[in-house]
């Protein structure tokens, strides 16, 4: 079976700078695939190569089995939703959406029909004659997506289209985009630097750094089993300890002088390593004595109240090292006060060590 998109050994250099440095992946038909990475990691370059606005230095890009290298952007069965949306300001909503259809020489009635249908699908029925500048941020978003989807591309590329929206709208649009993708069944390739966008919407996420993919996985796996220290620190919140590996290769001694039994993600670690512990992996008020648990005292410094996402900042044992711990959502820990000392523990499998 042909994959919707298949990329092999893709490279792009600008003079000496390797923007994309050998990327391999495939995307299955009808999936929501995200490329997540910090700014400057090469994700926009990668997207623009898929769209055809940049010529790769080497490698192959196949869409439904057909090689795309050397084919101009307008001949590729992909459409791009631009970061600034690029809605034509001199045309109304209907004309914007009809733009691509007119280029395919569709009949007038067919165009009208399609524009009407797609606008209804993106919940903007009857907006044909509205001026683009009169739309809200979220509506512009949907018009831009409709303008591309009306051409029924094999793949829809999205270049951080939520970046310009305010936080609340962004939360809504995340859900909306996911729904839209479900309804249309089109393959979406979405690039972003916002991990929550990627995790919420995607079937699969590729984490990109310095022009390379660090890990391609489902959002759950990415969060639960990061393969590299970059992924562990970039995806989700985490506490980091500098440490050195003990001889038994099953525990480490942190810089603060604490011993942790750990799980070695990276078998190649020699002596120095980094220990990662997620805030929600730390369990408060536990009983001592379980075999595969690490125990320590936490001195509560600050409570960061944020509704269901409330956390505390606390010092570990007697050291100055501060870690972040999530409070469970039940009100069991509502009584905790700043300055209190609490016994806490964390399971070995949640203490991950990376190079």
């Amino acid at each position, binding site marked *: 079976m042909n994959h919707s998109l298949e990329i092999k050994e893709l490279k792009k250099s600008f003079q000496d700078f390797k923007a994309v440095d050998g990327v391999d992946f495939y995307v299955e038909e009808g999936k929501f695939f995200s490329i997540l990475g910090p700014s400057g990691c090469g994700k926009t370059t990668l997207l623009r190569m898929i*769209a055809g606005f940049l010529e790769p230095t080497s490698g192959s890009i196949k869409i439904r089995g057909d090689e795309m290298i050397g084919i101009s952007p307008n001949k590729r069965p992909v*459409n*791009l939703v631009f*970061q600034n949306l*690029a809605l*034509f300001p001199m045309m109304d909503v209907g004309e914007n959406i009809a*733009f*691509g259809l007119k*280029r*395919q020489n569709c009949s007038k009635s067919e165009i009208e029909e399609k524009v009407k249908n797609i606008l209804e699908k993106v919940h903007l029925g009857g907006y044909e004659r509205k001026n683009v500048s009169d739309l809200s941020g979220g509506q512009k978003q949907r018009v831009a997506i409709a303008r591309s989807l009306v051409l029924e591309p094999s793949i829809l590329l999205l270049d951080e289209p939520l970046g310009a929206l305010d936080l609340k709208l962004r939360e809504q649009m995340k859900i909306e985009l996911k729904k839209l993708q479900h309804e249309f069944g089109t393959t979406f390739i979405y690039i972003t630097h916002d991990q929550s966008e990627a995790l919420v919407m995607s079937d699969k996420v590729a984490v990109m750094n310095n022009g390379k993919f660090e890990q391609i996985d489902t959002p759950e796996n990415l969060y639960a089993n990061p393969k590299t220290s970059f992924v562990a620190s970039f995806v989700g919140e985490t506490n980091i300890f500098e440490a050195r590996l003990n001889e038994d290769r099953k525990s480490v001694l942190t810089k603060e002088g604490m011993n942790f039994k750990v799980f070695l993600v990276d078998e190649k670690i020699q002596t120095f390593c980094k220990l990662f512990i997620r805030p929600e992996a730390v369990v408060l008020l536990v009983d001592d004595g379980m075999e595969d648990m690490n125990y320590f005292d936490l001195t509560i410094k600050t409570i960061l109240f944020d509704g269901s996402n409330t956390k505390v900042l606390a010092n570990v044992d007697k050291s100055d090292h501060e870690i972040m711990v999530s409070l469970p959502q039940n009100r069991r820990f509502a009584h905790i006060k700043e300055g209190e000392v609490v016994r806490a523990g964390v399971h070995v499998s949640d203490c991950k060590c990376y190079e």
Partner: protein
Amino acid sequence: MNKHTKFGFYIFFIPVFLWLFLLIVLPHIELLFMSLKYENDMGEMVWSLQNYKEFFSEEIYWLTFLRVALYAILVTFLTFVVTFPIAFYITKVVSPKYKGFLIILLLMPFWVSELVRVYGWMILLRESGVINYFLVSLHILDKPIEMLYNDVSMIMGLVYTSMLFMVVPLISSLDGMDDSYIEAAHDLGASKFIIFFKIVIPYTAPGIVSGSIVVFMLTLGNYLTPNLMGGKNSLWFTEQIYNQFIASFNWNQGAAFGFLLLLLSSLIIWIGLKLTKQNLAKALS
């Protein structure tokens, strides 16, 4: 507003007011009044529309007027056609490395006096000029021909003189246009032709209009280029005004001509602004 700032306000306001009133408004009112005065048979100055009647009854006057208006429109259009590819190339096609250099190079000649530029064309084009010299030495021509003093050379000269005022607003409006509009249109399947007429031109319309207004106005009011490069039949309307003032010493008739020219240029500018729904302050800044 306290007394202090009130005082400050008048320090600025009075000179500006005097400037606008004494040097702009009053002289143009005087122009209108003078154009409405006519020396009757008794040698007295009386209010009359005779100067304007004169304009419409003498074919040479209104024909010149009409021809100049049409030529000015033609020059504006040609200037746009000639400079648009340059503006597009500099802003969108050429590597950004050369952009600054090309722009400086583009603006340089326009710092030099119009007279010098026209003179340059004269020594290139005239019968004993440089181009003729080359054409004859290369045996393309048997004997030199006069390439100056005709409508074509005059229009070329006017286009040359006006290019700057078109290319600068074009460059700045193309610069303000995000490349993603063109990419999006291309991605949606538009041809070059469609991108140009449906996306680029509408987007840069404000720049085109402000460039066109300035070029049109300068061409209409030009004196040097038509006078030095045009032929005997290429009389420009400003030359007729000059003749009335300096040669015939008929200031009232000249004032009427001047007022008509002012009216024409204001009218066309107004139409241009209305058509594109802009206002003067925005178009000129």
